[in-house]
């Protein structure tokens, strides 16, 4: 190999690696991201069961029910529509009725219940998940005066 060929080989190897990485990123984007929905979006979303999504909204007052201790069911609502959610595990400290949450999981085949494996609540009393706040605002829902959206 001449000097030039070697140099080309190195540059070619580098570019090849970058192309490979780019493909990997594209592939991962098609596989491993979750779209964010609020309950009233779901009707038009037409999701196939098992698709991972993030579902955000407000925990409906009075909807939190404990099952056999570990499993909790509650309704996530954007005031226009509500979706029943089940979650097994420990809810975050700041999970409360009437407060914003983001849940991540999927719908089970043939059921309208959303099975969440992750529940995120606000970090502190003045924090509302931005996704939720934006969407709720877009749906025309104003939050009570105490809730400052940041």
């Amino acid at each position, binding site marked *: 190999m001449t*000097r030039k060929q*070697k*140099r080309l*080989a*190195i540059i070619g190897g*580098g570019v090849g*690696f*970058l192309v490979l*990485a780019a493909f*990997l*990123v594209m*592939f*991962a*984007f098609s*596989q*491993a*991201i*979750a*779209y*964010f929905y609020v309950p009233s979006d779901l009707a038009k979303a037409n999701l196939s069961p098992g698709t991972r999504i*993030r579902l955000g909204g407000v925990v409906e007052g009075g909807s939190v029910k*404990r099952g*056999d*201790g*570990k499993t909790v069911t509650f309704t996530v609502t954007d005031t226009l529509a509500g979706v029943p959610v089940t979650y*097994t*595990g*420990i*809810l*975050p*400290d*700041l999970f409360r009725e009437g407060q914003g949450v983001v849940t*991540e999981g999927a719908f089970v085949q043939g059921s309208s219940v959303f099975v969440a494996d992750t529940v995120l609540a606000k*970090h*502190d*009393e003045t*924090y509302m*998940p*931005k*996704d939720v706040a*934006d*969407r709720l605002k877009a749906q025309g829902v104003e939050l009570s005066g105490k809730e400052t959206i*940041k």
Partner: protein
Amino acid sequence: MIIELGHYALVLALATAVIQAALPILGARLNDRGLMELASSTAVACFLLVAFAFTVLTFAYVTSDFSVRNVWENSHSLKPLIYKISGVWGNHEGSMLLWLLILTFFSALVAAFGRNLPETLKANVLAVQGWIAMAFALFILLTSNPFARLVPAPGEGKDLNPILQDVGLAIHPPLLYLGYVGFSVCFSFAIAALIEGRIDAAWARWVRPWTLAAWTFLTAGISMGSYWAYYELGWGGWWFWDPVENASFMPWLAGTALLHSALVMEKREALKIWTVLLAIMTFSLSLLGTFLVRSGVLTSVHAFATDPTRGIFILAILVFFIGGAFALFALRASHLKAGGIFAPISREGSLVFNNLILTTAAATVLTGTLYPLVLEALTGDKISVGPPFFNMTFGLLMLPLLFAVPFGPLLAWKRGDILGVSQRLFAAVAIGLVFGTGYYYAMNGGPVLALFGIALGVYLIVGSVTDVALRSGLGKVARNVAWRRFTGLPRSAFGTALAHIGLGVTLIGIVAVTAFETETVVEMKPGMTVEAGGYTLRFDGMRNGSGPNYTEESGHFTISRGGVAVSEVWSSKRLYQARRMPTTEAGIRTFGLSQLYVSLGDQIGEGGIVVRIWWKPMILCIWGGTLFMMAGGFVSLSDRRLRVGAPARAKRPKTVPVGAAE
């Protein structure tokens, strides 16, 4: 009055930074010694002024002076002293002041210890530092003034966010900032080189230790932050691929690459232009991290306060410095003389490979972090890019690098012999496989990937030890000669080995926890027992207690093994009074390198409570490995001697070495 004096000192620091930014660079142009010397005195004066302002703010916190708005918003008179002090940087304004303090501290260090730097280089470097200091001082004074006053003063503060009231917070941000801002020095050196159009030999001699120091602190800061999130948030996770974590991880990846390319530069004068580019990219990523965290485009525990003017101001700083730096690079890079030449298979070649993978990985993380923001801006769709994405892309990309790590130090400079190195590493591979298989059987039934991961970790560790052993000629020369050579090895060789061992240790921790962790969520009544990791936990009941500014309910658990009580653990839920905010204080017990992690949920009925128990095998390896890396950094840093990479002689004289990657 003292408060206002601190405020004035900060304003004066800005004025000093203006002089520091303007005059020395002119001096370097005109070759005027007086103007160039101004760089050092302004840098030191600026640091002293900011340090005074910072001390005054700390004083206001310690004395609970609620006439200072920042203190009122983030402190409480009943808070323990340590959290009053750490509260200074537990909020947006204070943390920016800390950022500035560290920046000016580093400038002062360059001024004080830069005697052996060429004067024009020193003047230009400090001028660039002055530009950065000026931008951030202006940002603080105009949009995030920590000295804003409240009249009349409230009687009590609003308290610091309880999850930030922790020793971890006292140390995590300063360490992280030492890292972030440390890269500003490398950036300033790079810009100075571009301004002058030449890179001195002294340049590399300076840039490598700065990179090393910044990298070491950043490693410590990230590791600390990860451990803090692990025990404070109560979710039992140690890394979430949260955008804010990524914001600190990207500079770390780029910084690691910079560390390795600066090595080539110092020893071989090769990869000059690439190193300059990398130094610019690393600090740009640090600035981007600051922007992402501070501007409020991301919501997280770190986004203390969000205010659009701040976001736009930081964005302007970002565009100015990153855009300016890359524009300067495009204009001037061709003026820099390309350096040494080397064959693709050589120590340099392996370091290029390292750089290629690390920068690609950083780019991947950047893509994953920014993609949701870009997509939302373009289409309005909201998506979340979570751990699955990063595990898939980042994990796969890093694999070849992990394989290559032990090869690097064994290859000769300029041209190397990969076959010979492979033979010498054969033992390491074998030992790795044996350990991996052994661990697999010990944990019987873990996933096959875990076997591979553990083997890779052990291979990294053994490979790094092999490297040091081979370099001291162990087994080839007489034992006393080998010992003499061993002690005579440059400290940076030990630093390298330690850091690479650390990588292996962290990898083992990650793989073991991911593959073998067990999680139990159970409703417990007093007297009930649960099995986890071979231990039995018995729930004994709840107790109420209170601290200085919170009340808590704690559950007591007795841990036994084979019927014998070996330990106990308290796990609690706290309610902080001032903010009426609950937090979880997980109970954690360490057994060897593994941990039992107990976190409480809601109470149910009579004395019953939901409990989440994790068994985290080998989890301490994750942070233990970073301790090795830090130790490696410090050992390498203590190597004050100048090193030359002796090139290997060509075996076939006809082969012409090629200049690569320049």
